[in-house]
């Protein structure tokens, strides 16, 4: 059972690493602010989400697991709203 959980964690966290990597590469290599914003939200939403997913089975109690989910939910909410706000500002030509 524990080996199975380890395998799951490695898979999920490894996938999370990939999205952080992709987000950073996008932030550095994409040509303009709007596309960079797009890259950033991948790291925010999927990168952290997959890391959290990989850690959940390792949580000591249900409350700790819930806290992990709340952390992810807060980052999702912040990331989505600020991406929207930044996108609008950029469209109006403000930067």
């Amino acid at each position, binding site marked *: 059972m524990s080996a199975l959980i380890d395998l799951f964690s490695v898979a999920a966290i490894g996938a999370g690493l990939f999205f952080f990597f992709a987000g950073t590469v996008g932030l550095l290599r994409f040509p303009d602010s709007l596309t960079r914003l797009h890259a950033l939200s991948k790291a925010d939403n999927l990168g952290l989400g997959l890391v959290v997913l990989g850690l959940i089975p390792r949580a000591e109690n249900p409350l700790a697991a819930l806290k992990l989910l709340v952390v992810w939910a807060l980052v999702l*909410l*912040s990331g989505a709203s600020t991406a929207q706000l930044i996108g*609008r500002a950029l469209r109006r030509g403000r930067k």
Partner: protein
Amino acid sequence: MSVLPALDVGLALLVVGVAAWTIAARNLFASVVGYVAYGLLLALVWVRLYAPDVALTEAAVGGGVTGVLLVTAGKRLDALASAEVGVPPGRALKILAGALAALVAGALAWVVLTLPSPAPSLAPAAAEAAAGPGAGLGNPITAVLISYRSFDTMLEKVVLILAVLGVWSVGADAAWGAAPAPLRKVRPDGAMILLAQFLAPVGLLIGVHIFWVGADAPGGAFQGGALLAAMGMVAMMARLAEPPRIDSRKLRLALVAGPAVFLIVGVAGLALADNLFAYPQNFAKPLILFIEAFMVLSIAVALPMLVCGPPNGSPK
């Protein structure tokens, strides 16, 4: 080399690198943003030093209050435009500044190098106090803050009030009593309103939770209060709430509540526990939580008032 030391060394190098870059940056806003990044990294460093209490403070103050303060200040200075370019300093001024910086750095280095070994420490005394009169608290840090060095802790909150007074006194005479300017001029986008409507209640809950667990686990009055302060600011940034008038009685009572209650309980200690700032052994814990609750209130009100700035506009 195993993984953990490698991680620590990497983190330390990164912190030093970001710090150096923040100082060296030519673009004002870039260095402000660099400083925010530096604060985030410091929170990680504190966790690696097994000091989650300090990490929590760094996260709440660095990420919330100072982040907003610095970004606001950076943008205002940017608007003045002289901050980045200005008149380049003359050679004499450069040499003088360099000499002063070298002097300070040299003095610090000398002090660090000549520290006696083993260093003098109050740690055993504090640990003893936390275990004895520190009373029923599972978190030794809270016990030390409220019991061992209670006078310092109270005066820290007085300093916070003095800082708020200092900010208020910068305003024009005619504006005295009025409210500070709102944190945002125009009506915000729907997305920002939604964000604040979700964040503020959740943050309120988390702030109170961190204050409450602070008795037995990492957390405490300052960390909880700073998070609540941040939530007040988020509401003001989305114009869900406006900064209060500075002559509001409620505001002023909330500001002084923490130190006042602390002082009253402390003086009552003379009669109840035969010492100033001592607590009766049997109900030290409820008493400490009682004091801390008012401290949370004062901190949660004082920090946003510092960010809001001096009163603005007409007094009536």
